């Protein structure tokens, strides 16, 4: 089986699993407990936290149940904590649902939301952002790498623009963390990271914070400095720290991406959806007049696992909001699939994909013609 759906989730690194298992049995105590075992668990938790601080370059790390919770905390938390200064928030139409849905909720509460449009490449126009910024804008939330087509937002330019503005800058880096490290010029005030996208475990993420006021979205025992109540999972924190340390950008991805692009260019009925400047580990292509699910199914029969544009929207019948937003030609709109690489992907996988895609393609087109 060839697994090329790493943007949906990745296979856990065995070393990360080992950390999780060891930490679960040795440091099972509640890190808030008074006794020595609690103390030790807390020490491990804080060591994990400081390792993550160092790797991400942030002063404050809040452990969450994953990317969705971190995005909710960043957006709702920042909106509520700063509503005295203003109630206007800017984001983009192609953001992940875990950003768009909390924004919808805030809209119901009376916040004003501006969603920037994108061009065919999924890119925003910086002039649009500049125009959308108002005195009462309190938050700008934009993702680093689009999960469906791989578009990279120009974070350094946006950061520079916001240096002259008091709005907080939140970046959902779920698809970029561990793969495309942020430079200092790109670092936002709030950064979302999810462990299972870089060979860590599910249900584990962080919100990294740099000088931003937040309000909690979960209430209870006041853990994580009051911002995230609930007993912190020490094994999850340790496993995330380990996975983040092991994650390194793979320069081969760029080469493989180019190889696949020229391969798909050989098919008249395949449209390459991801812009050439997209993140190297994500390649979305669309097939003309065929449903994406059909192609995913045909590839699966050949032993290759890819997904339709994104795992989250795969179960909805209509085209994803990202595909709509970039205005893909109608005949391709339902036919997008996403191929995504991870740290365990090899060049052999890429060669096999090409062979097996060819077979799957023949099968589909054969059926259609008959």
């Amino acid at each position, binding site marked *: 089986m060839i697994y090329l759906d790493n943007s949906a989730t990745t296979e856990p690194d065995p070393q990360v699993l080992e*950390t999780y298992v*060891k*930490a679960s049995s040795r440091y099972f105590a509640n890190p808030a407990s*008074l*006794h*020595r075992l609690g*103390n030790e668990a807390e*020490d*491990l938790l804080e*060591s*994990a936290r*400081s*390792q993550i601080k160092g790797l991400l*370059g942030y002063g404050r790390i809040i452990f969450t149940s994953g990317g969705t919770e971190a995005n909710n905390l960043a957006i709702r938390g920042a909106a509520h904590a700063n509503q005295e200064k203003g109630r206007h928030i800017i984001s983009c139409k192609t953001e992940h649902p875990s950003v768009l849905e909390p924004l919808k909720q805030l809209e119901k509460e009376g916040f004003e939301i501006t969603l920037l449009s994108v061009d065919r490449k999924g890119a925003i126009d910086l002039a649009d952002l500049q125009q959308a910024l108002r005195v009462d804008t309190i938050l700008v939330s934009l993702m680093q790498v689009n999960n469906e087509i791989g578009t990279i937002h120009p974070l350094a330019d946006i950061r520079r623009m916001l*240096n*002259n*503005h*008091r709005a907080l800058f939140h970046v959902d880096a779920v698809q970029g963390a561990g793969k495309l490290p942020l430079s*200092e010029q790109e670092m936002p005030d709030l950064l979302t990271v999810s462990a299972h996208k870089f060979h860590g475990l599910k249900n584990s993420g962080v919100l990294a914070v740099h000088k931003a006021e937040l309000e909690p979205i979960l209430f209870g025992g006041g853990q994580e400095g009051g911002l995230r109540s609930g007993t912190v999972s020490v094994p999850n924190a*340790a496993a995330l*720290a*380990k996975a983040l*340390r092991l994650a390194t950008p793979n320069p081969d991805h760029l080469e493989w991406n180019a190889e696949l692009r020229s391969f798909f260019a050989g098919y008249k009925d395949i449209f390459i959806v991801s812009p050439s400047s997209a993140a190297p580990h994500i390649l979305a292509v669309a097939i003309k007049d065929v449903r994406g699910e059909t192609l995913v199914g045909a590839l699966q029969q050949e032993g290759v696992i890819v997904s339709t544009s994104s795992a989250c929207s795969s179960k909805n019948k209509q085209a994803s909001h990202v595909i709509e937003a970039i205005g893909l030609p109608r005949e391709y709109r339902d036919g997008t699939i996403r191929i995504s690489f991870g740290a365990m992907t090899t060049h052999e996988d890429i060669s096999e994909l090409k062979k097996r895609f060819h077979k799957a393609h023949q099968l589909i087109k054969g059926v259609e013609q008959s």
Partner: protein
Amino acid sequence: MKTNQILIRYGELSTKGRNRKAFISRLRNNIQTLFAGTPTLRIKAERDRMFLFCDDEQGMEDIVSRLPYVFGIQSFSPVTQTSLELDEMKHTALSIVSKMDTKDKSFKVSVKRPNKEFPYEKPEIMRTIGGYVLGNTPELTVAMRNPDIDLSVEIRQDAAYMMAETIQGAAGLPIGAGGRALLMLSGGIDSPVAGYHMLKRGVRLELIHFFSPPFTTERAKEKVLDLAEKLSGFGSPVTLHIIPFTEIQQEVHKQVPDNITMTSTRRMMMRIADAVRAKTDAKAIITGESLGQVASQTLESLQAINAVTNTPILRPLIAQDKLEIIETAQAIGTYDISIRPYEDCCTIFTPANPKTKPKTDKVEHYESFVSFDEMIDRAVAEREIIEFPRKKQQRFEDLL
């Protein structure tokens, strides 16, 4: 444009006549020690002010966030350097001002132009920069006299230098200028604040803590370690002495009537502290006592406790209100540690009705039946010594 310099204005130190040089070099050393982790930092100390140079952005941020706690500094200003292009200068000016609180604030630009080859005259520079900032910051008003925000621009040969923000320093004297003293650190709110006040007078600290397991928990000890770590963050390392105190505390309870155990316990602590003080070559003992706050802090109690030594006992909080003390604790970051709910050895054996006016001779009489000297020597000898700031050891290498 880059913010790569800081201008430091000296505190009280400017008035110190002939000692000035020693004070300045003390401050310089303290800053160097504090930012040893920032190798790109360069320091230029002049007679009237000091300049820090640091080309690494993160290092700079770290310096700006910690400098307000370094004693011997009246105030400081981050300085931003730009090219000699008027266009870049005005953009830089706006970006500096926009980071400040501009609501209902008044503003002015002042220009120095030692570089006479610069093609624009002062009024034109002022107009261009001021106009641009005001145009983009409508809530600002202009005030030529005593403006809230004074953006100063200096046009030199190599570049233009700008600053607007004046960040208050911690004032006081550079640590080390005032000798060494031993602070009795309980884990409560007051003692770290007392230590802070003495640090501010340039005193280097040794710390002593009394630990009574199992009556006090590991967590209570950890609290003290964290407080010690905080106190070491003001530019001078500190040493903590942890005294095993259970035996003595139990003995006191056996020997003296309940209502004066507290007084007697404090006397034992003072005797031990004095012994440790002598070993560390400290010249005084510091406590967080504040008059009338609790039974042990009445004048009568202080007299009975103080009777065990001739060493000067410094009580910087003696006339302060609890609220004042809490305010300082919050400002220096010890409050959140101090209020963690773990009991220290002072709170754990507190009798229901401690005497607020103990008689020294009576206390001495009750204590005279046991030889505490031996126990005290043992406690001093068996003390645990920890240096701060602690080297962060990697304990979980196999897991992380």
